[in-house]
């Protein structure tokens, strides 16, 4: 398929996944605030940290009040990671390759965008409804994509984008919340606030699945589940395993080997998680581990872009395929 179209479908999925994640963690935080005692300070700054936009936010808004963070993350078009900006970008990408995706997918993305544009400004009045709509529209997008688009190259580029975005967001939720709740590695084992940790799991829609696997909520098990679970679809390990499968189906390279740097880097990062143990990670420092993970995931993204999307000059062309 056209390099440009592959890139568009990759980003279409990333942006929709991003919007869903932003909606989920604002929603969870709103609920959490209702459960906290009135005198404990509200925690809105971490949300800005999760999307990694704290400098832009500090410059344009100053304090992280509920209103400021809400505006910044839902409908501020100057913030490229706000829900509205994500949907605008997703729609532009979908528009630029309408001939590749199914009409049902296009129609859904277009309606999703129109809904967000209409509702984002009023989201503060009935926030739960708005964020639920965004999450459901994202699930529906994935479902329509699965049901109406051939599971060929384009579909795998989309899935690759979605899974890489998801692994990144889960790692950030874990990083920010862990740091906030347990600043020191030695704090592990001190009395925990069940409500707060349940909120961390809800931010990744993981509470019920976690309960089935571990039952009691402990910080170490929460980190274990979100990082290393092989079956939960928002766990970082799961995302990388599936992303790698898609990458190899695109290129035709047998699993366990590589022909380009994207495959090499993704394979390495995935195998790191294959053989990781949570106690070791926490011993060395969870924050340091997650920081490196995000850095390496960015490198994977760069190499996917270099291998498949880059507008290669006419001479010295035959890279990545053929």
């Amino acid at each position, binding site marked *: *398929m*056209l390099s*440009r179209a592959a890139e568009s479908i990759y980003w279409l999925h990333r942006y929709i996944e991003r919007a869903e994640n932003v909606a989920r963690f604002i929603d969870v935080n709103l609920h959490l605030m209702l459960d906290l005692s009135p005198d404990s300070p509200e925690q809105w700054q971490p949300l800005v940290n999760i999307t990694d936009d704290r400098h832009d936010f500090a410059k344009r808004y100053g304090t992280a009040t509920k209103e400021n963070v809400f505006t910044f993350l839902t409908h501020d078009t100057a913030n490229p990671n706000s829900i509205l900006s994500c949907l605008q970008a997703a729609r532009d990408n979908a528009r630029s390759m*309408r*001939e590749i995706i199914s009409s049902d997918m296009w129609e859904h993305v277009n309606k999703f965008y*129109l809904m967000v544009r209409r509702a984002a400004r009023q989201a503060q009045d009935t926030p739960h409804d708005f964020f639920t709509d965004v999450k459901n529209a994202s699930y529906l997008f994935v479902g329509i994509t699965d049901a109406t688009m051939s599971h060929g190259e384009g579909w795998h*580029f989309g899935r690759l984008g979605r899974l890489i975005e998801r692994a990144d967001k889960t790692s950030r939720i874990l990083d920010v919340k862990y740091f906030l709740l347990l600043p020191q590695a030695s704090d592990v084992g001190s009395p925990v606030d069940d409500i707060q940790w349940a909120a961390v799991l809800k931010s990744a829609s993981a509470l019920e699945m976690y309960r089935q696997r571990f039952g009691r909520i402990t910080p170490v098990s929460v980190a274990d589940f979100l990082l290393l679970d092989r079956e939960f679809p928002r766990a970082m390990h799961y995302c990388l395993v599936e992303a790698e499968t898609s990458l190899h189906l695109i290129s035709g390279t047998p699993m366990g080997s590589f022909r380009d740097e994207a495959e090499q880097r993704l394979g390495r990062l995935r195998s790191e998680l294959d053989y990781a143990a949570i106690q070791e990670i926490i011993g060395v420092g969870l924050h340091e581990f997650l920081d490196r993970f995000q850095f390496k995931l960015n490198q994977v993204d760069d190499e996917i872009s270099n291998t498949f999307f880059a507008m290669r000059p006419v001479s010295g*062309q035959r890279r*990545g395929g053929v």
Partner: protein
Amino acid sequence: MNLAAYDTGPFYDELIRQDGQARPGAAPLLERVTSLPEGELVRRQQAAERDLLNLGITFTVYGDEAGTERIFPFDILPRIVGAADWAIIEDGLKQRIQALNLFIDDIYHAQRILKDGVVPEELILSARNFLQPCVGLNPPQGIWCHISGIDLVRDGDGQLYVLEDNLRCPSGVSYVLENRQVLKRTFPQVFEVSQVRPVDDYPSRLLDMLQSLAPAGVPNPTVVVLTPGIYNSAYFEHAFLAQKMGVELVEGRDLAVVDNLLMMRTTKGFQRVDVIYRRIDDDFLDPLTFRPDSYLGVPGLMQVYKAGRVALANAPGTGVADDKAVYAYVPQMIDYYLGEDMVLPNVPTYVCWEDKQRRYVLEHLDELVVKAVNESGGYGMLIGPHASAAERKTFAEAIEADPRNYIAQPTLSLSRAPVIVDGALEGRHVDLRPYILYGAGRPYVLPGGLTRVALQKGSLVVNSSQGGGSKDTWVLARD
């Protein structure tokens, strides 16, 4: 909905006769419309508009906020063309497109028609769209204008005229197909009894025609649609046609010339392209041949084209024949190349470049419509009877300064069709743009077309860029 209140005025109405009775083919539709409960028609109109917005069937408005998209205003009452009228239209268009094609081929080769003095040589050689690099080109099958849209109007007495030839990148056919989808949902029963001819096979016919242009020896030719990108006003149509044909939609940056072949950049390396349905203007096709500042085209494309290794539809250079001053000579072309009488007449046209005709135009500006020869979209136009004295003066000066650039025509009393305005029917002026495909074999005329409506009361300008809308066009299989 009550028909009795509808006033056709002094105009020819496409659906309703002066005595208030339905024209023959329109009876089932009008019966249905009048039997609908109060408000139902408006409700259906709103549902149709909502569908169009959700489907993203929009166009970009230039000069507005960057990237503003609107739905193309749409009226759910179709325009109906009877079988007898259509037979004349179809014959007339086939004749016209063949003559125009022979003319273009002649102009870029021997120029017999100029040497024989049938069309003034200076008029053609001074045409802005006469492209020197196209001299001597031999497009596949000898066909230059593969896809054209020819605008027709009906005068007060019911006579159909050709108003304008669009031989470069005529747009609008996607609305023909989409409007039909909406109408089938809106009036299913009427549709059945009226025996409306289908238009849905247009993408298949377009693809067949494009594949017929592929270089010899290519068994499964790769066809692409070349677009300027998502900010172009007709982007929706480019994507729509690529999707319906199942071919790639490419931008200039996706293409490159490699080893004298035209290639597209794919995730698996370069892949050869055989036929380009290009929706960018000649000027922008190849910066090495035409405008050097173009980023939309592909450097070196024309070399590959001249070598016969890629086909372009339409061929570059066709614009020489949709110059409005050249239009005036189409009757002579039909006689010269085909030895036939014209089936669909031209609107009488004064070419300001000729002294006598210019004097007449300047003396009768208050009666005439004046048009700049290379403008489209309703720009560069003076409607004399509706213009102020100051506007007429501006145009008079412009004509004196550059007579080659202007033509004039009598102000026709354009026919009207009913549209829904605030829940009632009112007449609005319409035109009709049928689409013609011309590949190997005879030209094919799509039985339908874009009926454009001047939605503003009394307005004669139907262009979408000037507040025009559209209607579905029903061509009947039988009268």
